């Protein structure tokens, strides 16, 4: 029996080795090579002394803002969804846009936000001059938030939906105000959903790259953009891989930060 249970692991180990460990290993290996293919630590040195450190912070800041606003919109949405009559239908309607290709949606926003687009047409109706919306921080964060909302809503919706409603009645019976009920009962019980929502938003937000050009006009530079440039233009695979290594480290850290606690603590 024991033998059997170990062999059962083989397919999974094989899968992980080929599709997870090997690529990460290759990235780590390439990050140690210079332009001529010789071993060097210069890439890492370069990362710490140049613009890349600032860029890491900027990426972090934008990813934080995107996650924050996505959460701000998604939590109440998920909450009200669970109260509606046909909640699965509503959830479906929110998810459907995520089936459309990301680039297509991004291109659509170029038209929507343009100087002669519908948004500026609205602004003009109210008697204001058309404003520059496209290629600003606002448009960047708006589009990113729009893209991530469905991914944030789903885990929060599931957590809220699984919650036992009698706990809320109990809290209210015992004299807790609506706010206290939310703070002490609802939110702590759905925190796992929020955490997974943050993971699926924050991590991809760190490495967004196409919309930094199409929507932010390269005025927002993220680590993702830098990696693309290093590989395709500068042909410096070493430096590109080094940035990727740091991206992986940051992702790992954010996973640790939002990890699910196994032991049910009673705080």
């Amino acid at each position: 029996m024991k033998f059997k249970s170990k062999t059962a692991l083989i397919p999974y180990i094989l899968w992980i080795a080929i599709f997870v460990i090997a690529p990460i290993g290759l990235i780590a290996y390439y990050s140690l090579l210079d332009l001529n293919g010789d071993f060097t630590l210069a890439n890492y040195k370069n990362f710490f002394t140049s613009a890349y450190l600032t860029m890491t912070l900027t990426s972090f800041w934008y990813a934080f803002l995107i996650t924050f606003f996505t959460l701000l919109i998604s939590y109440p949405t998920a909450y009200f969804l669970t109260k509606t009559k046909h909640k699965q239908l509503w959830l479906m309607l929110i998810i459907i846009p995520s089936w459309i290709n990301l680039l297509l949606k991004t291109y659509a926003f170029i038209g929507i936000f343009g100087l002669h687009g519908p948004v500026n047409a609205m602004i003009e109706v109210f008697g204001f001059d058309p404003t520059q919306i496209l290629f600003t921080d606002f448009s960047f964060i708006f589009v990113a938030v729009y893209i991530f909302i469905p991914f944030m809503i789903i885990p929060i919706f599931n957590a809220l939906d699984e919650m036992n409603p009698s706990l809320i009645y109990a809290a209210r019976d015992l004299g807790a105000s609506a706010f206290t009920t939310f703070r002490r009962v609802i939110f702590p019980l759905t925190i796992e959903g929020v955490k997974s929502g943050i993971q699926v938003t924050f991590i991809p937000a760190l490495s967004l790259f196409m919309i930094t050009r199409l929507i932010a006009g390269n005025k927002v530079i993220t680590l993702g953009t830098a990696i693309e440039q290093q590989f395709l233009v500068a042909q410096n695979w070493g430096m590109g891989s080094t940035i990727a290594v740091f991206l992986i480290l940051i992702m790992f850290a954010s996973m640790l930060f939002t990890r699910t606690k196994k032991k049910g603590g009673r705080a």
Partner: protein
Amino acid sequence: MKSLINVTLSILLVCGLLAFVAAKLDTSNAAGGDGVLTIYNWGEYIDPDLIKQFEEETGITVIYETFDSNEAMLTKIRQGGSAYDIAVPSEYTIETMVDEDLLIEIDHAKVPNLQNIDPYYLDLPFDPANKYSIPYFWGTVGVVFNRAQLPDHLTFDTWEHLWDPALKDKVFLVDGSREVIGMGLNSLGYSLNSRDDQQLREATEHLKALDGNVKAIIGDEVTPLMINNEATVAVTFSGQAADMMWENEDLDFAVPQEGSNLWFDNMVIPKTAQNVEGAHKFINFMLDPEVSAQNADYVGYATPNKAAMAILDEEVVTDERFYPSEEMRTNLEVYENLGLEMLGVYNEYFLEFKMSLQ
């Protein structure tokens, strides 16, 4: 145990399938040979009717693929495994490809139409005696601007006009480190092939002063944006400007006098070619005056083909914005192959400039 083997097998099957699909998708791998010609060209860079005409005349089937940067093309050819018979790199990339021994010498005896090419575009420093490459199109980098929406004093015969306070949030730049840093160098009177760190530093600082004026740094999306009057000024390639002006009559194009980039795209035959004979036929076909004229008309860039220029509209070939005179060309510079090390430096400065915006 049995299901276990099944799972293991299915993983291996997935790997095999992926490899198979990858090989299939890469049409250039599988195909190749006498009846087939694989062409690797820039996007929107040939009149599709001409491909059909070539197929009809020669009976060769053409596989046509496109790239969007010299670097991407180079990487693909360098890695091997492709079977491109024709590629169309720019001059500094041709230099690299010759250095790395990636090209086959062109047999001039098989390209009699070469006589149609203006000698000015032959025997250039990047490929002496045109051993490896034959001219396809040439052009410049300049400023396309909306005459109707700008004060009259802005004519862009100098790069300095880009820094004009009237252009607040109105300028598009092309997303390329050589082009933008080169423009910064030119605006200060330096060479756009500068390897001097002091000059590069100065150019970057000068570019940073452009901050308030830059609306976005983008790629090919600039064409529809300019046509729709989304921006007033864009630094772009001459042919792209010609496309925009075709659609929007308010637009005009100028190449600043301090200097700018003059580039040549030439046809080459990579070492990986499977149909060298067909490749020669194609090059000769493209140099035919009628064909060349039709192509230039469609693409909008300047043709080096003297016989074709005779056929083209007089108005087009005498337009000095797109066919700058020899005298004007003395201010223009061709990109030199700076080497990867220096290219990296240009990129770092470009990144610094981008990050300084707003």
